[in-house]
């Protein structure tokens, strides 16, 4: 290239990375100039996080080189990268809430005088550092746990700068911020630019990307699709680069209009800490797909409906009767089942048997003694019906494959004869064969009269399975799409290139 940009701070050439034989990154090139904001966009799973981890020393690449100011570097760990001047601001902050701002900023390299930590010096330096990025209102001796999220982010940035970072990676920096805090971050980013710091800015939100960056690199399925100058591109063009793959897999037939039963669940004006103004109807016999980015409120919606973190405002009616879903127990008794996103953490009890796992919900909800034997028989039948493959019902569930574990979880809920099923990423981390078995099961349940709500980040799955799609953004419903929608439609709603009114 022969443009007038200064020599790049960071140059990535042909970066590749595989995990267990799966190619996650393939030949990715990218460079960042001093004082430049270079945005990296892509769908969930496009390889953004892996790329950032390689730059910040978290992973070693299988191929390609990382050059810093023209010199090839190999980082053996995050500390290596830090010393080389690369700071990363994660979505979850790496801060100690019980310690002060200064103690956090200088953790690991506290200034010492005659062998003792020089607190005054530490506070002064922190204050100067904060002032240099325009944050004079933040006291260096404030306890981090008492700060707001935006201010904690400032502390993270100061911590990176205290190590003389020349390149900062920001991974979804606005994900945790409220609207008015985003403005503050914009100002901060610009001041960092003025100091000549290069920024790699990873974000789902195209508005931010257009507001801040000078160039944008689009990743898809581990490859770099293109790098464009922000000034010469449009949001629609970006979205087209981000998606666009062939629909190859097979999905079961959708519900015909006559299959749809009465309205099972109505949510009106509901909200809680993470959700606002949710209006939703779910009919018997249908599969309602919920799209949106991570953190857009999809899981929060399922968790609210299942009473994990209940709605604090609004009304929910179930089969025409108002209900209050205060806890998972009340939700279960109302006939709602929830297959969680985090199967390992919330779905299974790894060291218990398949049978115990499948009986978990029925045991919890029904009186201890009544019909125990009958229940066990029924659950064994269900396990056979969902075709769990393994050594037997008495095996510990952790030895099963992800797909089979998921089937056990499903059997657990089916034992309660639920009328409403909430699926959160039902096929994440599951092999192809088991995936289509689960798709068939979900559709069969709907056909038998259950109302299904299915959250999925897998766009082909979302489009292939749903009778209707609701897309969420920032804790609200951004819009509704028919089954015939395209991937572009979903992404456009999810990242906010379309105004809600137009949707």
């Amino acid at each position, binding site marked *: 290239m022969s443009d007038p940009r200064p020599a790049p701070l960071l140059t990535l050439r042909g970066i590749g990375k595989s995990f267990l034989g799966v190619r996650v990154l393939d030949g990715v090139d990218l460079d960042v100039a001093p004082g430049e904001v270079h945005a990296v966009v892509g769908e969930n799973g496009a390889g953004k996080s892996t790329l950032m981890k390689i730059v910040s020393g978290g992973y070693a690449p299988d191929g390609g080189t990382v050059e810093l100011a023209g010199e090839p570097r190999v980082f053996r760990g*995050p*500390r290596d990268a*830090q010393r080389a001047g690369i700071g990363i601001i994660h979505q979850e902050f*790496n*801060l*100690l*809430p*019980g*310690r*002060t701002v200064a*103690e956090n900023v200088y*953790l*690991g*390299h*506290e200034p*010492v005088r005659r*062998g*003792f*930590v020089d*607190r005054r010096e530490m506070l002064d330096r922190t204050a100067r550092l904060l002032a240099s990025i325009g944050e004079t*209102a*933040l*006291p260096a*001796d*404030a*306890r981090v*746990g*008492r*700060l*707001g999220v*935006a*201010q904690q982010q400032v502390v993270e940035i100061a*911590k990176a700068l205290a190590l003389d970072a020349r390149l900062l990676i920001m991974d979804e920096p606005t994900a945790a911020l409220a609207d008015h805090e985003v403005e503050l971050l914009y100002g901060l980013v610009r001041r960092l630019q003025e100091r000549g710091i290069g920024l790699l800015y990873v974000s789902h939100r195209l508005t931010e990307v257009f507001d801040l960056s000078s160039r944008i690199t689009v990743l898809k399925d581990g490859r770099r699709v293109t790098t464009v100058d922000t000034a010469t591109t449009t949001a629609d063009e970006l979205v087209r680069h981000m998606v666009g793959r062939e629909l190859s897999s097979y999905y079961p037939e959708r519900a015909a209009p006559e299959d749809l039963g009465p309205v099972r669940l109505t949510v009106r004006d509901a909200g809680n800490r993470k959700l606002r103004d949710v209006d939703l109807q779910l009919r018997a016999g249908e599969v309602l797909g919920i799209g949106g980015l991570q953190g857009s409120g999809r899981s929060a919606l399922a968790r609210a409906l299942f009473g994990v973190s209940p709605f604090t405002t609004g009304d929910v009616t179930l089969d025409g009767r108002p209900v209050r879903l205060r806890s998972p127990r009340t939700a279960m008794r109302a006939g709602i089942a929830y297959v969680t996103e985090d199967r390992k953490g919330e779905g299974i009890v790894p060291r218990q048997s398949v049978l115990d796992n499948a009986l978990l919900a029925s045991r919890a909800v029904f009186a201890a003694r009544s019909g125990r034997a009958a229940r066990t028989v029924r659950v064994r039948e269900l396990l056979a019906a969902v075709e769990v493959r393994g050594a037997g019902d008495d095996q510990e569930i952790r030895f099963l494959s992800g797909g089979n574990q998921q089937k056990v979880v499903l059997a657990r809920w089916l034992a309660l004869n639920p009328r409403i099923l909430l699926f959160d990423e039902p096929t994440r981390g599951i092999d192809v064969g088991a995936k289509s078995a689960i798709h068939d099961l979900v559709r069969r349940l709907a056909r038998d009269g259950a109302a299904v709500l299915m959250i999925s980040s897998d766009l082909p799955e979302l489009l292939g399975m749903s009778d209707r799609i609701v897309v969420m953004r920032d804790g609200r419903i951004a819009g509704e799409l028919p089954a015939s929608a395209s991937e572009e439609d979903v992404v456009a709603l999810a990242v906010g290139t379309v105004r809600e009114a137009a949707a």
Partner: protein
Amino acid sequence: MSALSLLPARRPVPGVFVALTLTLVIGWLVVLVDGGQLFNQSTTVSLLHVAAGLGLVAVGQTLVILGGSLDLSVAYVISLSTLVAAETMNGSDGALMPAIGLALAVSAAVGLLNGLLVTKFRVNAFIATLGVGLLLKGYLDSGYDGPAGTTSPTLVQTLGYQRIGPVPLSFLLLVAVTGAAWFALSRTRFGHHLVAVGGDPEVARLSGVRNDRVLVTAHVLCSLCAGLAGIYLASRLGSGAPRVGTEGLYDLESIAAVVIGGTALAGGRGGVIGTVGGVLLLASIDAIFNQLEVDAFFKQVIRGVIIIAAVAVYARRAMRKAA
């Protein structure tokens, strides 16, 4: 973001000192009604003696708990230290310093073992230190039937019984050790790193802290404190005592004092000043009940209630802060 939350972090007086004051006032009144006097010379002196012994152990325990670890072997280290000290002194003043040095060295070695087990071998601290404790117990039980060795007379006269007014020398030793620990926590890198490791090991590691080294150091310091407590007990008893640590319940009582003093059992939050408050509170309750000649079992019940109440209060506070 309210203005209030921007106030600099104050170092609040741990609630334990409020509880301590209340206990002393109420205790004084109750003892008065009963026809006694809580703060006469002999009760005050014995209260401070009790506090000195437990305090030395508890300050060490605070360090490991702050770092997210725990030490259940302290009671056995205390017993071992009394024996090593008393047997080496063998009743003469000549071997005073070597004996103290040897007792501390043996204690430090136990701490090093604890620390290595917890860090390098990744054994859960509860199990590792319990195991090391049982190992020491085996040695003590097989080697000793009763008291052994004789403490040097000088040590008995100084550390054991000398006092300035009502304040025993041993209590001043506790004050000095506490001061040193406080200073280490707030003014040394080791202290800052220890609190960070206890608060979030991953954050500490990513900030360049050598977690293992910090935790091993904390374990060594904890055992040294226990060893010091052992030397003090030897000076009180005049000999080595193979079961003094366990009979005094120094393991559980030290942990209780740390928790009552406001240090989070999970680590990362708290300090030694609160621990000393916890120690004084436990010692005061002892003193009051001794004055009232309350049944020993009932005394245990009250202690149990206080420990549970303290933890419940701290948990509630933590919840309110999080909200």
